[in-house]
C-alpha cells in the first residue's frame, strides 16, 4: 500500500518519538526512501528539536544559579533555626 505525503505528515511527531506501530513505521520508511519532500520535512523537524535541546538556544540569565543557591541557603538557614528552637 502506498502512503500519501499528507498521511506521513500526520505522523511525523510520533515517528520521531518512535511511538508509531511497526507496520506504519515500515510504510513511512518506504515512503521516505523515494520522497524527498517528506524526508526534508522530517529532517528539518528533527533538526529543530536538536536545536531546541541545545543549551545555547535557551540560555539561563547570568547569575541565575548563584542567586538561586544564595536564596536557598537563606531558606535552609532559617529552617535550621526553626527546628532548632522547637
Amino acid at each position, binding site marked *: 500500500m502506498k502512503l500519501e505525503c499528507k498521511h506521513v*505528515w500526520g505522523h511525523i511527531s510520533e515517528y520521531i518519538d518512535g511511538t508509531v506501530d511497526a507496520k506504519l513505521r515500515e510504510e513511512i520508511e518506504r515512503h521516505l526512501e523515494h520522497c524527498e519532500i517528506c524526508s526534508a520535512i522530517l529532517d*528539518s523537524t528533527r533538526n529543530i528539536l536538536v*536545536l531546541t535541546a541545545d543549551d*545555547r*538556544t535557551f540560555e*539561563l540569565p547570568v547569575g541565575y544559579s548563584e542567586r*538561586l543557591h544564595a536564596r*536557598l541557603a537563606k531558606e535552609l538557614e532559617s529552617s535550621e533555626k526553626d527546628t532548632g528552637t522547637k
Partner: protein
Amino acid sequence: METKATTEAGLIARILAGEKELFHELIRPYERMVYLTLLAIVKNEAEAEDAAQEAVISSYRHLGSFRGDAKFSTWLTTIAINEGRKRLRKAKASAEDSIEEEVEGQEGDYTPAPLTDWREVPLEALERKELREALRTAVAELPDLYRHVFILRDLEELNIEETAQAMGISVSVVKVRLHRARIMLQKRLVPYLKTTAPARRGFFGRAL
C-alpha cells in the same frame, strides 16, 4: 552500582533526616529545567527567575511529601507548573480553562512546510546566533498550551508519560499538542532556514 534514581532517593532521605545542605546538590541538576518551565509559562525572564526560586523553595519545604512513585524531576516540574499557573492567575483574571478549550477545539492547519534545500547539519546551524534567536522567538510565540508541552518534552526532554503526568493531562492530548507545536515550529522556521541555507547547485552547475 548506583543509578541516578537511587542516588537521588538516598539524597532525599538524608536531607529529610537533617542533612539540609544536601538540598543544593539535589536541585542542581534541575535548576535549568525549573527556570525554563517557568519561562514557558510566565514568558518574562525576571518573573521566571523569581518564580523558579519560589518553586525550588517550595519543593524544599514540601520534600517530606514527595513519594517515590513519581520521578523527582516530574514532581519538581509539577511544582514549577503550579507556581507558574498561580502567577498567571494573579496576572490576569481570565481563567486559563476557557482559553484551553478554545485553542484545543480549533481546527488549524497543521501541515508542515515543504522544503528540499535544507541539508545543513544541526551542529553547523547551532553556530548561527540568529537561528537560535529565531527559534526562541518562534517557541515564545507558540500558543500557550502547545508551548508548555513542547518545552517539557523537547527542551527538558521529559518523556511523553512524564509530560502528561506533570501537566495533569492525558498521553493522547500530549501527543496531539506536541505534534502541532513541532509542525508549527517547522513551518515557522523553514523560510528562515531556506534563505540562509548554503547555495546548492543550479542549472549548468551555477549556484542558485
